[in-house]
């Protein structure tokens, strides 16, 4: 199966959602899937399982800090997106992957674990928590949340590459009492976003058995 890689650079969150929806329609119509990279300006997104107590600061105070808040049609609770966090959106026809949401999420997490390993970071996925964690520091490094229409996926993962982690103090990420970390924090130097994108593409292609065109 073929997939096209697109790099949207820095893009408004809601614009990215609208673009994804158009791509879902294209994949439903038979076009090949898309692997999309982008970054967002600071924004909190509230998934379908959002709980008010996951916001640790009043909504108005958050918006005064210049952080937008949007309710979105993905699974999970609240998460933060900000520059330095690599968003990976995957528009993929899951009819070719046994129509199994759990396995799909596990495979995405596996790609993230493999990616971090290749950068020298030991990370694991924890099935009942979802996402990817760094056991040495008991911190979370990758958040995950997807939507599915007619068995075509959208949304995906946020990998903290060089993210300013201070904004995570506004929330309980994914509703968990967990601190977030980043590749840059763990490696103690900034990490090339382009290298991360290249490595992700290669590992994703291997795990999902797709040809990047």
């Amino acid at each position, binding site marked *: 199966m073929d997939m096209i890689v697109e790099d949207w650079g820095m893009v408004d969150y809601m614009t990215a959602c609208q673009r994804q929806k158009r791509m879902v329609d294209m994949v439903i119509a038979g076009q090949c899937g898309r692997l999309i990279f982008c970054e967002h300006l600071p924004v909190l997104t509230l*998934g*379908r*399982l959002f709980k008010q107590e996951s916001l640790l600061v009043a909504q108005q105070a958050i918006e005064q800090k210049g952080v937008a808040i949007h309710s979105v*049609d*993905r*699974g*999970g609770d609240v998460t933060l997106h900000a520059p330095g966090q690599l968003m990976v959106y995957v528009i993929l026809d899951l009819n070719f992957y*046994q*129509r*199994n*949401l*759990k*396995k*799909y*999420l596990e495979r995405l997490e596996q790609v993230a674990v493999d990616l971090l390993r290749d950068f020298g970071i030991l990370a694991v996925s924890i099935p009942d928590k*979802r996402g990817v964690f760094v056991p040495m520091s008991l911190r979370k490094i990758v958040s*995950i*949340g*997807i*939507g*599915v*229409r*007619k068995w075509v996926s959208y949304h995906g993962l946020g990998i903290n590459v060089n993210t300013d982690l201070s904004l995570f103090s506004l929330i309980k990420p994914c509703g968990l009492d967990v601190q977030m970390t980043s590749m840059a924090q763990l490696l103690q130097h900034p990490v090339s976003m382009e290298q991360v994108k290249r490595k992700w593409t290669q590992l994703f292609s291997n795990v999902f058995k797709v040809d990047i065109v």
Partner: protein
Amino acid sequence: MMDIILPELGEGITQATVACWHVQVGDKIHVGDEVCEVTTDKATFNVEAPASGRLKSITVKSGQDGLVGGVLGIIEQL
């Protein structure tokens, strides 16, 4: 009458929460229309109408849990 069933979403997933209904009781719907959105811990999934007709009743309301294989709502075929 035709039941709208919560489909299999993958092994180990036995239930999901109805996040919202896209249609209301009495609305006309066509086979394949997305009628409601369900959510598991990290995924949302849009459930499609198995037949054309009118939505007769909603069995699992927004915010309630439905079982995989269970009835979410009923379509009256016209």
